[in-house]
């Protein structure tokens, strides 16, 4: 399972980087989104995928008495997804503004900051 997921992550990552290397900034943002998803999956895969129960402590005991799955990676991924979502939303707004102001999506034409 882990090796299959590793291949999937590799493919998504490669697709994302490929899109990011295009000159079209819309494709660039799509690439960025894909890389973000690949990274979330990578956290999931690398932190060990185990088939155990949820880590719930019985009301009468103080400690976890059985082997359980690790909840922390999921908490981290959830946080990362939320943050990534917010950042992506903002990126898309900037993308829209860029298009409105320049009427252009080619990075070769967006060189105003270098010339000023």
């Amino acid at each position, binding site marked *: 399972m882990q090796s299959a997921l590793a291949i999937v992550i590799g493919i998504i990552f490669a697709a994302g980087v490929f899109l*990011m290397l295009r000159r079209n*900034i819309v494709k*660039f943002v799509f690439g*960025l989104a894909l*890389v*973000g998803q690949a*990274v*979330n999956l*990578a*956290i*999931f*895969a*690398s*932190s*060990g995928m185990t088939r155990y129960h949820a880590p719930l402590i019985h009301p009468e005991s103080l400690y976890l008495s059985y082997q359980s799955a690790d909840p*922390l*990676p999921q908490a*981290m991924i959830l*946080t*990362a997804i939320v*943050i990534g979502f*917010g*950042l992506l939303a*903002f*990126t898309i707004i*900037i*993308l829209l*503004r*860029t298009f409105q*102001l*320049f009427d252009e999506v080619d990075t070769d034409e*967006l060189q*105003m*900051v*270098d010339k*000023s």
Partner: protein
Amino acid sequence: MNLLVLPIIIPLLAAAVCLLFWKTPALQRWISFSGTFLSFISICILFWHVVNYGPVAIHIGGWQAPIGINLVADALAVIMLLVCSLVGVCVHLYSIFTRNETLEKFGHHPLLQTLLVGVYGSFLTGDIFNLYVSFEIMLISSFALLSAANGKLQIEGAFKYMALNLFGSFMFLAGIGILYGMAGTVNMADLAVKMSALDDPSMATATGMLFLVAFGLKAAAFPFFSWLPASYHTPPSAISAIFAGLLTKVGVYTVMRFFSLIFVQNIGFTHELIVVMGVLTMIAGIIGAVGQYDIRKILSFHIVSQIGYMLIGFGMWTEIAIAGAIFYLVHNIIAKTNLFLAAGVINRLQGSYHLDYVGGIYRQRPYFSILFLISALGLAGIPPLSGFFAKIFLIKAGLLDGRPIVVFLMVFVGLFTLISMIKIFEKAFWKPVKEGVEIQPLPGADNPSVINSMMIPIGILAVVVVLMGFGAPIVFELCKLAASQMLDPSAYIHAVLGGGF
């Protein structure tokens, strides 16, 4: 040690209160400034405590490390906090005095507070995932501040800034995932213990490279620096000043933190690589600055070149070299911020940042010229200002470490820094405006109270540059304390894992 929470809580509260008064920027101004100022006070107390009694930690909610979330302050963290909050106060004062009302309408004040939350959080946090969260808080605030002016230039700069920084964040996140898979913890002190007991250090070095790319991007190191000169000259001057002072330095701080605490398995490779990166960063920045005539663009390229010095100092991995790098970091935050603030005043007086369209400011405002000259010569490293000692310590460390070529390059690049600073001073201050060019002062340039009040923060920072030069031995002792804690992180680890407060 509840004091540790204050630098994060106070600006966060101030930001929240500012949002309540969204429609009245005049009120926001003072709420927000009191937030900046109170967090500065709390940081001063924290600084005093840590310097006297050693590193402190707090476990939020009483959950002991490495399970719970914790905040840690060692000497490096408090030095960075103190300098950054001082710069924060000065820039905030400046932004109030510039009275840029359109920006205030777009939430300049709450965003400035959240930016500070991110910066302080990055220095104080004790686990790498919260470091990521702090980074993102800092990043999203800086995106918003950068694009708030909403012109063509700002939006394009913001896009380029976002594109590379977001990619850096993803690399950072991937690194966290792999590191967690390897060590089963995200607590920095716990990672330090577990990574030193690793069976196969080569995997750790490979993960370290992910972090080096991520932090190199944030710190604008070679070859990842291109976003910086493309964006730092676009926003209003107060914003570009706080970016120039704080953001890249947080990247350098995290490089120092990670490669002193976690990735020390293969120093011969990783730290050598940091030195090589540093040398290339230094040279690339200085070459970029040569052909530029926009004041803020010249200064932006110099940020890049000076990041190189810090990386070199850290990579040499001796006590005096690391202390020199920290000294350089402190000096650079102050001098660079001040130059960006001064560039804002030049723009206000003559309506341009371009050296061809300004001139003769020395005749117009001699005292301001002297304040600018202090920071510019401080940056270039003229004795007895702070930059001279920063360079001397690094050069001495390089010679002791047996790296004559690196030392030669450092001196060479220093010379070019001086040439660039003289170029600005000559064209903007000494020479009269070129014939045929009509200067167009911005609103408020003829109002002496506006310009004079803008001098206050610039004056404070210039005084700090001078004091740091005369008090160099005292500051250097502090930096040495931080360096010794980095070389032997047992005090840091003990503060987090053993005992507790």
